[in-house]
């Protein structure tokens, strides 16, 4: 398991949020969504997205299947699962309290 609050969990959180909000997407779609939603503040190194996606697939948080895409080639579409939704809730709560804590420290430092 990744260390809590590491870059890996952050990425997981982002992916799960995107998939939760926007429904099934392929890898490229996920990457662009993250960029878009964060207003260019977060730029994922695109290659590292895929091992993360496959890892989450292993853990059962997302599921994948090959479908025909708009470019008339097939692509692998990912969607969030029930377990993934549960994980998302838990992780986002932790993340919110973590960042609130950090902000408080910064305010009073």
């Amino acid at each position, binding site marked *: 398991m990744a260390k809590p609050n590491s870059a890996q969990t952050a990425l997981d959180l982002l992916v799960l949020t995107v998939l939760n909000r926007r429904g099934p997407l*392929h*890898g*490229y779609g996920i*990457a*662009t969504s993250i960029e878009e939603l964060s207003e260019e503040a977060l730029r994922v*190194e*695109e*290659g*590292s997205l*895929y*091992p993360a996606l*496959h*890892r989450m*697939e*292993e853990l*059962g948080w997302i599921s994948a299947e090959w479908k025909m*895409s708009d*470019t008339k*080639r*097939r*692509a*692998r579409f990912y969607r969030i699962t029930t377990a993934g939704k549960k994980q998302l809730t838990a992780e986002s709560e932790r993340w919110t309290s973590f960042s609130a804590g950090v902000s408080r420290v910064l305010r009073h430092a």
Partner: protein
Amino acid sequence: MSWFSRLRNALSPRRLDEELAEEMADHIARRATALNQEGLSPEVAQRQARLRFGNSTLRREESRELRVLATLQGTLQDARYAWRGMRKSPAFAVTAVLSLALAIGANTAVYSIMDAAILRPLPVHEPDRLFVLSWPAISDPGSPSGPERESFSYPQFLQFAAATRRAARLGLFSSPGVAEVRLSNPNAPIEKVNRAFVSGEGFDMLGIRPALGRLFSADEDRLPPGPGFAVLSYEYWHRRFRASPKVIGQQLVMNGHAYQVIGISRKGFFGVEPGKFADVWLPATQYEARALSDPGWHWFGILGRFAPGVSPEQIQARLQPSFHDFQLQLIRQIPTMPPDIRKQFLESQIRVHRAANGASQFRKVFSRSLWIVLGVATVILFIACANVASLLLARATARAAEMAMRVSLGAARMRLVRQMLTEGLMLSLVAGVLGWLLARILAPLLVNLLSQPGDPIQFVLALNTRVLFFCLGVSTLSALLFGLAPAWQASGQQPVNSLRASTGQAGKLRLGKFFVSIQVACAFCLVLVGAAFLFSLFRLFRVNPGFDPRNVAVLSITTDNNTTDDPVASSESGRAEEAHLRQIMVQLQGRVSSQPGIQAAALAWWPIFSGGGWSEQVIIPGKGPSEREEIFYRVSPAYFTALRTPFVAGRDFKLVDNSGQQPEPAIVNAAFARKYFNTPNVLGREFRYVFASSPLRVIVVGVVSDAHYYDLRNPADPIVYLPLGGNRSFTLYVRSPLQLGQIVRLVDREARFVGSGMRVREITTLEEIVGNTLLREKLLAGVGGACAFFGLLLAAIGLFGLLNYSVGRRTKEIGIRAALGAQRSEIVYLVLKEVTGLLGGGLIVGLAAALAAIAIFRSLLFGIQKADPFVLGTAISLFWVIGALAASLPAHRAATIDPVCALREE
């Protein structure tokens, strides 16, 4: 993603690969399109997209690892790769596999024999509750004590059974011996079987159930014995009676008595002695009547089963009082016993040993030799492993560039090591299978070597699970031994160096040199030990036995209805019978020796060199009984002529000489004269010996030169020869240049003429008998010699391989030297310098190991000093020759390197 799909991905990696590639390529394509739409040219967009993506190969690897049973896929990959590698270099693969297979096969064969003889438990019910009784041997003062005695008498058995009544059950088991048997119909031929005696409850004690009919019970222990019953072994029943159930109730005739077959023992039970198979069991009470009541007649072993919760110490405590009583009784019977011996008897304690694997004579005699042979086989394995290791090393260094590439691509070191180990494992597993097959052939061969016709040894050499595990274990161990070091070294390549394709990495060859040194050390050790065993055998052969064993046939003759080989009892009717027997014996001797082609014929009771003997204390007038018992041997006139033992003084026996005379005429050998009279002139001297509690006077009428009696190893013992009396069974020595078959027919004819049921029972030659005592030495010499040869061969191949490779690598260097004007001889010297270093180091280590080994095995060698010059000289010179041969080809190749070609080479 389930475990199942992981497995599926492992088994079809290509599909997974394609999928991953496709997914990532798709991503890059989309990014490129997006960039293109933003205004970049297609090529630039593509490049940018790729850059933004990062290291796709690495990501693919990461993803693949996640989605697959990584280890399994890795192993399969390695295996496939290794297999391809083997097929590409078949010469290397075949050499490696063959040499390993030979070594593994030899080890497995020896281990399977050890398992059958020493390690495997008896196929009986709960074998770990069995025990065997023994007592320490009484040794002559000054000589080392022999193995424990496991023979007891029948009265002892009865007493012991009473003493341990509730703590254990005892059973009596005799060692199987060859006996003659025939079916009850009158014209049935006489056959030979292995016969053993067992007490009534013996089978039950062991938990053996009958396969057919019934086995003995306590009824069979009643004395006087009733009509005799017999039990056959399953294997004999199948072999001889074709498993016909009609055999129950049939009569077998042995020694003139008829025994009814009442049952067959269960399949797989052969007796309690590994190495000996019993075909027929008779109740113990059917043995010689005199033996059953004589407390000093030790003729069988006692096995027992502990009652639950009983320990060996408790049994020992119960038995010791009765045992001590018997020892006291024995001492009272022999008033002339020397005090030293008497003390040993009084202090001897009966011993109780756990006997889950039976009581085995074979184990006692051959155990040490077997361990030695196993040790030698292990050394061969080391050599083979070192050989393969150095070959692998050479190959690995050749693949240095490939390894470096992999390292630079991000391969972990463990991964590379694992891959090379898989290669090694594959080699050794194939070699293991071949070795297993080889062991199936070798093991029976080895047992055959040890077996004699009069004393056959058989083993159930089932290659069972234990042996299988041993074989696998050895294979895996050898794989690790020879695979680990090259793998570690190869994977530790610095990519930069290898990719630069520079040569001259002197350090890399150090490991190879080390392996060759190991091979040389092991091979030299083997050659030394093998030479020691060979010389030992050679020197034994050259010992003068004191007689001429060539052209002498040895025939065992018997008259019908023979019960035992013991001398006829001296009762009145016994004396008449004895006289009659003597008469027909003399008649036979006379008739045979007068035939054309026969040079001489002589008689004795049992043949020499066969382990049988009769010894008594010698009482010199005025000095009291001797400490040692000396050998007494009854022979006919013309014995010394037949065996060509020269006389030193006096005369041979005459027909009128017989054992009834007072004093009895005797012929002694020179050793006897020296020992007891301190002079070779002993004609007319008298001494006495005790027989059946009465002292008998003996006068010396002749002195012969020393001759060996039991074996060739010890110097000749003192022997007293006495005139031969009549006996139902005796030995006929015939000296003749005729063929053995002709001699047998001749003797048979004469025996039938003489009549009284006289016939030939066994045939052999004196050379064979003497040779049989050298069995262990022959085994050691044969195995030692073969292993030494094989080890030498392997070491030579290793040496050659390494030198060849080294020359190949230094071609450029040699080319430069040659171009700069180096002479051929200088180049050859350069190459040979490497050899000498390797040989020298290995020789020294091997020498030390071999000398240590020889010191440990002194007792098995004959006539070999601690640093025997012959042995050392032979071994060293052999090694120089081999070393020179191995080096000659590479040296020649180095010397004939054309500088121009060499410098052009990459």
